[in-house]
């Protein structure tokens, strides 16, 4: 029997413990390091989440791509001005049918081995291997036979990539792909050393020691869900050009308020804001920066024959009352968003200038009379007295719900149309989208690579992301035309045709181009924001005194 006598505890113990604790705290915690250090060229940041997948062949999320873009490098890369520049490849030659890359001799893995053409062959085969089940396998579809292999119809060795020797890589293309070089700067196409990959087995990229790095930085310390530290990679071929010594993600939390608090406390040097933290940042008199992320948000309709949204007049009626300017100013809580006008965001390049300057999108001014007329015609065509309530499927984020409620109120007052809002969590919303269980869905699209095609083929009949099953032979024809040409004039003219169809057919209702606002320590120079790939890019950043 345990004999525990409370008489043994002296009354003085509690204060003693308290004093002791205070002493520990005071001495264990001398003035802590600040968020930037010019002498040591160190910057501290917070990640929004633990990178779920640092295997570049299967990574799809922003945080993993952010980290990978700093610690690995592809055949090409983006330089400090955001132009495509040599990476592992010193020079290249692109034709309508093939691409040849000459690799630099001094490109090395973090274990000292040279980066060779074989490392690319291995990685690319792995990406399109159906067993890998990479969601980004389609990035490599311009390579000969990639799609057939990915669908299990051809052996891996049929992939159009060949190591002529250690430093020469030849890629055979399935079709002319003018933007192919840009794909080689994306994480999915980065090299992986076969020997190392096989040695780590299924644990490849599970921990910092389970990855080989060939980028400007390497991960020196990774405590899952706690911190991830990147240090300058001494084996990197261009390490003289890199100023930062350490990018230290000392915190990992999705809570934007916690990150703002860390910024106020000078523990991190960069943080993104949302509608809630925006006002606090203003109150603290921080300089708020803006950036357009490159994503477009829109309402997508269901074209399955049993849904009344397949009626064009109905869609046009909604288009005729929607005011994108009002929406952006009234509903979106943060500055920096642009009113939606097209499927193509304003940053996408055309032949010489941004596409939207070369081919301006049609402007719709809200016109209530026209909308009511269109709605009457729609009812007549559908043979309905009244339009039954339309189901609007949205995700469960507070912003999405707010936007849906705005649409609900607006359509009710202006057109007497009823919307039923169906709020679903992430996976459930995806399931409903895929099964076509909606009339209208709140959707968005971000670019996967820096070419207009990343948006253009979205509503092609064969595209699996076309969840409303829009099917228009003319649309498909224009996409094919742009796909099979290397001539920018031809491609952009085809895309201009698409832009017109999107508007005239009211395929989608463009709502806004997403902008984000963020805080950045004034001593950080050269941090690059980018719409594709690793964002923000600290590779060429430096800390000024």
């Amino acid at each position: 029997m345990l004999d525990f006598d409370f008489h043994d505890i002296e009354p003085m113990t509690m204060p003693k413990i308290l004093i002791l604790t205070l002493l520990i705290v005071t001495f264990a915690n001398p003035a802590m390091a600040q968020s930037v250090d010019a002498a040591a060229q160190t910057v501290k940041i917070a990640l929004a989440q633990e990178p779920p997948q640092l295997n570049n062949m299967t990574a799809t999320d922003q945080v993993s791509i952010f980290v990978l873009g700093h610690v690995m490098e592809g055949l090409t890369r983006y330089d400090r001005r955001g132009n495509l520049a040599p990476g592992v490849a010193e020079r290249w030659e692109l034709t309508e049918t093939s691409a040849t890359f000459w690799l630099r001799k001094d490109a090395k893995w973090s274990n000292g081995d040279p980066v060779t053409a074989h490392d690319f062959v291995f990685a690319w085969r792995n990406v399109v291997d159906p067993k890998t089940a990479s969601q980004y396998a389609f990035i490599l579809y311009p390579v000969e036979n990639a799609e057939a292999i990915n669908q299990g119809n051809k052996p891996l060795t049929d992939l159009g990539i060949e190591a002529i020797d250690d430093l020469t890589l030849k890629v055979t293309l399935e079709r002319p792909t003018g933007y192919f070089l840009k794909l080689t700067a994306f994480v999915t196409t980065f090299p992986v050393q076969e020997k190392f990959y096989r040695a780590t087995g299924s644990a490849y990229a599970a921990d910092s020691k389970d990855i080989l790095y060939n980028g400007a930085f390497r991960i020196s310390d990774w405590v899952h869900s706690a911190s991830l530290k990147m240090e300058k990679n001494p084996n990197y071929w261009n390490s003289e050009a890199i100023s930062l010594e350490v990018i230290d993600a000392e915190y990992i939390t999705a809570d934007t308020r916690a990150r703002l608090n860390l910024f106020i406390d000078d523990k991190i040097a960069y943080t993104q804001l949302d509608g809630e933290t925006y006002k606090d940042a203003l109150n603290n008199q921080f300089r708020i920066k803006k950036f357009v992320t490159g994503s477009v948000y829109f309402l997508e309709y269901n074209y399955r024959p049993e849904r009344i949204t397949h009626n064009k007049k109905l869609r046009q009626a909604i288009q005729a009352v929607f005011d994108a300017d009002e929406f952006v100013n009234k509903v979106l809580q943060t500055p920096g968003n642009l009113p939606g006008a097209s499927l193509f965001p304003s940053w996408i390049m055309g032949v010489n200038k941004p596409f939207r300057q070369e081919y301006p999108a049609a402007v719709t001014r809200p016109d209530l009379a026209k909308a009511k007329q269109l709605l009457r015609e729609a009812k007549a065509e559908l043979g309905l007295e009244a339009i039954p309530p339309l189901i609007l499927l949205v995700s469960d984020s507070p912003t999405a719900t707010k936007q849906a409620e705005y649409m609900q109120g607006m359509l009710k007052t202006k057109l007497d149309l009823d919307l039923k809002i169906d709020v679903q969590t992430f996976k459930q919303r995806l399931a409903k989208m895929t099964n076509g269980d909606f009339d209208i869905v709140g959707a968005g699209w971000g670019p996967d690579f820096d070419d207009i095609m990343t948006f253009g083929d979205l509503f092609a009949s064969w595209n699996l992301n076309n969840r409303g099953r829009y099917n228009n032979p003319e649309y498909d024809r224009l996409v094919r035309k742009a796909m099979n040409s290397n001539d920018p004039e031809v491609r952009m003219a085809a895309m201009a045709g698409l832009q017109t169809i999107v508007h005239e057919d009211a395929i989608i209702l463009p709502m806004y181009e997403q902008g984000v606002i963020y805080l950045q320590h004034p001593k950080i120079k050269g941090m690059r924001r980018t719409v594709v790939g690793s964002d923000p890019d600290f590779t060429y950043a430096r800390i000024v005194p």
Partner: protein
Amino acid sequence: MLKYTFGRILSGLVTIWFIATATFLAMHAVPGDPLMNEKATTPEIRENLARKYGLDKPIAEQYVIYLGNMVQGDFGISFTQQNRKVNDIIQDHFPVSAALGILAITFAALGGILWGALTALYRNQLPDIIIMFLVILGISVPSFVFAALGQLLLVNINQWFNISLLPVAGWGTFAHMIVPSLVLGLGTMALLTRLMRSSMLEIVNEDFIRTARAKGLSPSRIFFQHQLRNAILPVVTVLGPQIAAITTGGFVVELVFAIPGLGRYFVQAVQQLDYTVIMGTTVFYGAFLVFMVILVDIIYGFIDPRVRLK
């Protein structure tokens, strides 16, 4: 005593089996496809993933395979972090939650017993009224409010005095643990205070206390040896489940203070429909809770011999 212990363990195992089965069924009943992602994938790729995770088999077979693996202590590979074992996730992150939880429960138990005893001693006087007011606040205000307020307060203190009194967030040193564990333990501390108060009040009028007084024992001896020791029994009863609740329920606190605990995985797995992590963490937490309850029952047997005799 041995028979009693054995019986408790057996019923505990049945409970765990029930938790595993119920979670398995509920999880599969939730609509949505765990293999689906923002970018649509071809049916071939989905099939390959389904095969990798054994989702291509009939649900009954999946259940049998799952139970078999569970008995061997293997929870499989995470769906979201496809190169991490669920066992590793639990191993890496539970100790963090546990360390935080233990500190929180220490704050809660010490505070609860102390305040509870104090309020009973000063019944209906000012200290009692003040403490009981705070207790109601502690019980009714959810931990995410305290977490946000606690952090904001720290930021402001650091700003005003231009010092780093305590870290605002993060993990690694004892200093990182203090504020989060206080926040985490606050609710339990309030609960224990109330429990301790009522149990002390019951005992104050008992015969054996009057006898002790009549014998001329000093008030402090009566307080510590007779009142406290007897009043603490109900507190011990709830302490077990409370320890489990605190070490597992810190999701919000972990998020706000950027702490790499298991709670974040537990909640995110449900949002992501990460089947293996849902199962792994739920069964693990379930087993932990059952274990704590059994432990309390056994400890109770030591403190109060009457329990064993029944």
